[in-house]
């Protein structure tokens, strides 16, 4: 679980940007869920390496966007490239029997507000996610990696509320 990310830069007119990621899943959420399959067996594989994936996200987003100003064309390509590169590097960790979904968002820092939320129906014994928020003075980027096993123990809703509000415009008086 990541804590809040600090404010941007030290300019006089600051965009405050913060992101919070939390995950929670309770078995109680699933009481009414029709279970299409029963337990498909014991899990022979390892755990999804969340720390390693966090590191991959930090490296890829940082190196791709550190010096980048927001421009529609390059950022469109950057979003696709980031998703592909992160997927390839997570694949290279060779965690057996995991499926991987990578979602990347890149947006311009403007006076807009936005919210990104996701919810999953999966098995909390084996499935998890990793998330990273990047910002510079011109753009922000959010990347989520979801790892699900090819197995089912017990249904559970897991909510990842990525509350990302980029609309606080503060004027710092001298």
């Amino acid at each position, binding site marked *: 679980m990541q804590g809040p990310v600090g404010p941007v830069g030290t300019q006089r007119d600051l965009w405050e940007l913060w992101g919070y990621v939390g995950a929670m899943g309770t078995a109680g959420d699933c009481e009414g869920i029709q279970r299409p399959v029963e337990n498909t067996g014991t899990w022979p594989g390892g755990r999804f390496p969340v720390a390693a994936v966090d590191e991959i996200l930090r490296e890829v987003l940082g190196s791709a966007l550190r010096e980048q100003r927001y421009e529609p064309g390059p950022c469109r390509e*950057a979003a696709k490239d980031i998703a592909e590169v992160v997927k390839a590097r997570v694949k290279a960790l060779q965690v057996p029997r995991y499926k991987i979904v990578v979602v990347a968002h890149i947006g311009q820092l403007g006076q807009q507000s936005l*919210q990104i939320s996701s919810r999953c129906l999966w098995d909390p014994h084996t499935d998890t996610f990793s998330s990273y928020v990047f910002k510079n003075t011109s753009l922000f980027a959010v990347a989520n990696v979801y790892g699900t096993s090819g197995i089912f123990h017990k249904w559970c809703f897991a909510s990842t509320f990525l509350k990302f509000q980029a609309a606080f415009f503060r004027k710092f008086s001298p």
Partner: protein
Amino acid sequence: MDEFQTAEEASFLVDEVSSIIKEAIESAIGGNAYQHSKVNQWTTSVVEQTLSQLTKLGKPFKYIVTCVIMQKNGAGLHTASSCFWDNSSDGTCTVRWENKTMYCIVSAFGLAI
């Protein structure tokens, strides 16, 4: 006939999922103007409704649903995804919706067990 039905039951049908998502968006935010105080409740509502309708299909899938709601004021946003999965059974559907004051992008990923 039995085999065809089994194959359909076990596959991710994009049209079916797309209409589920559209319904969820319309019922949560259709006809509303962007309000900062409500966006949290809206994204939650879209995602939860989509996921519960997907669950009711009763297919052997794990689902990941993501929703972005962004105020319209000229700023740009790009979203991309990349997946490592089983091409024959897994699928994704993304719906982009807008009105005069906001954009909404919902993606649903279905991963067969």
